[in-house]
């Protein structure tokens, strides 16, 4: 299946409908009292000074997908300061299943995020994933290869959501059992049966998580090992003790090995908190293949280019396998690329069958894309369309 996907990447469908926001409305969201944006399927370019509210618009789009959005904010943090009602974002979206109206917002008396699909309440935000998948690159991710492994795991896990909607549920369940076990160990409760019960669950979910990440890395490699124009070829690997074991022995044996490791390390884990082994210790390792160099040792610009390579590879994979690429939110990405890479990025974005949203302080950074995109000026939480076709 992965190979078939590879072959069709280059001839991906002009037949499949684009995944695109058509209308976006915000109320009491971040610095917006209310705002409305009508856009077509082409790239959406948002320009304006720092603090004008460009990234807030990207965040609003990210709330059309499951999760905590591009700033991983708590629900209440997205309320407008001094606003008198909770935030809400709604949109009309063209999806693979046709036009759908999606809405989300904070529940009036609480922290929960409500989701509405075609005017009816959805049971959970996971339902949004059936229609919309969003992937983003933000300036905060520039240090991804320098930071701790947890940010890199989150990055990889988000790429998996588009292919495997159960992945988020498995991660949550694993995390809960891990915390339960840590609590028991910390309290010094030596209830072997209870610990066993928790560890059995950690093993079941943990191996599934590791397997999903491994599959994702293998599929990404099929596409991103090859340099795409000025974007470097990237080698992607997930590392960790579980990944090692899974590479050397069958899954069932890996489960036993993981179970044994958890049992053996109870005393150690009680002292350090957490657990010595598990998918919460895995890391995403990226290599600049052209230079044969680890991403963390590359220059800042090269690291950014590697990240873009991976995100674009993921979008192409998803387009080939699922018929549509995710909506791409690229915050301040263009400004940090040289002219060659910028032009190449724009060409690739135009070739993907999904909408992309880009921000930049000046329209100048979008040179080459302006006549094929829709340009907006954002200032003081108001959005104004600029006629850029003349």
């Amino acid at each position, binding site marked *: 299946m992965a190979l078939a996907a590879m072959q069709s990447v280059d001839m991906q469908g002009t037949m499949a409908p684009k995944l695109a926001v058509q209308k976006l409305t915000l109320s009491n969201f971040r610095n917006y009292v209310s705002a409305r944006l009508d856009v077509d399927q082409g790239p959406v370019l948002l320009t304006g000074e720092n603090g004008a509210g460009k990234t807030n618009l990207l965040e609003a789009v990210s709330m059309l997908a499951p999760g905590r959005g591009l700033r991983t904010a708590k629900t209440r943090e997205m309320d407008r300061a001094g606003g008198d009602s909770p935030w809400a974002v709604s949109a009309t979206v063209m999806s693979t299943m046709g036009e759908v109206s999606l809405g989300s917002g904070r529940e009036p008396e609480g922290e929960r995020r409500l989701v509405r699909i075609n005017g009816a309440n959805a049971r959970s935000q996971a339902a949004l994933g059936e229609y919309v998948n969003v992937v983003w690159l933000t300036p905060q991710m520039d240090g991804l290869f320098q930071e701790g492994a947890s940010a890199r795991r989150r990055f990889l896990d988000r790429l998996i959501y588009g292919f495997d909607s*159960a992945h988020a549920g498995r991660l949550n*369940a694993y995390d809960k*059992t891990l915390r*339960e076990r840590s*609590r028991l160990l910390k309290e010094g409760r030596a209830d072997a*049966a*209870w610990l066993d*019960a*928790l560890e059995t*669950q950690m093993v079941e979910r943990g191996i599934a998580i590791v397997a999903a990440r491994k599959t994702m890395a293998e599929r990404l490699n099929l596409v991103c090992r090859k340099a795409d124009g000025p974007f470097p070829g990237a080698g992607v690997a997930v590392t960790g003790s579980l990944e090692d074991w899974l590479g050397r022995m069958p899954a069932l044996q890996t489960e036993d090995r993981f179970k044994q490791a958890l049992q053996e390390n109870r005393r150690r884990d009680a002292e350090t908190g957490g657990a010595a082994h598990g998918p919460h210790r895995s890391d995403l390792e990226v290599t600049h293949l052209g230079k044969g160099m680890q991403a963390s040792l590359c220059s800042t610009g090269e690291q950014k280019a590697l990240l873009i390579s991976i995100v674009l590879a993921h979008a192409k994979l998803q387009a080939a396998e699922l018929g549509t690429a995710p909506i791409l939110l690229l915050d301040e990405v263009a400004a940090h690329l040289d002219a060659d890479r910028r032009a190449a990025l724009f060409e690739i974005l135009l070739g993907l069958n999904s909408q992309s949203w880009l921000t930049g302080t000046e329209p100048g950074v979008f040179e080459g894309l302006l006549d094929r995109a829709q340009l907006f000026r954002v200032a003081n939480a108001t959005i104004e369309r600029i006629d850029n076709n003349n």
Partner: protein
Amino acid sequence: MNEIEQVIQLLSRLPGLGPRSARRAALHMIQKREGLMRPLADALDRAVENIRICATCGNIDTHDPCSVCTDPKRDDTQICVVEQVGDLWALERTGAFRGRFHILGGVLSALDGIGPEDLNIESLLSRVGPDQPVKEVILATNLTVDGQTTAHYLTERLAASGVSVTRLAHGVPVGGELDYLDDGTLSAALKARHALES
């Protein structure tokens, strides 16, 4: 606070009722004072006096042991373990199970400070000894993380007793369409497939 306000305030503490629906319920009762309110008050009064928690299984009834535990027509060789009395009621509505029950009174949760000693687990173990008629324990805890942890825990604790431990099947609901099922349920159903008898 007068009596009417007190009724409203108490009603609003019931699950599923907010202040608005509590006011509506109170008003409805006040309008039917003799036909509804007094019988309800009397029934509540009698219930408070007579409700017993069954020392054997944890069920709620007006006798201890409860009517499920004392029913001579029920099968002594099977015990179905559930989290709450509401789960027992749900299984009883099906009429499909004629064995005995055991109510845990919750699930294990280290984060909420609920351990084995807070649940009716010792009483369950005492019901499956070698001199007892029980042959099968059916674990019917919820398919939540905590429910499953509890099921694993009970499996381990019951292992020594030699009874067979089973759990409810996971998979396609009756009348369900595959198209609408989530991936996790579908893969569980595939894993638990069984041969059709011809």
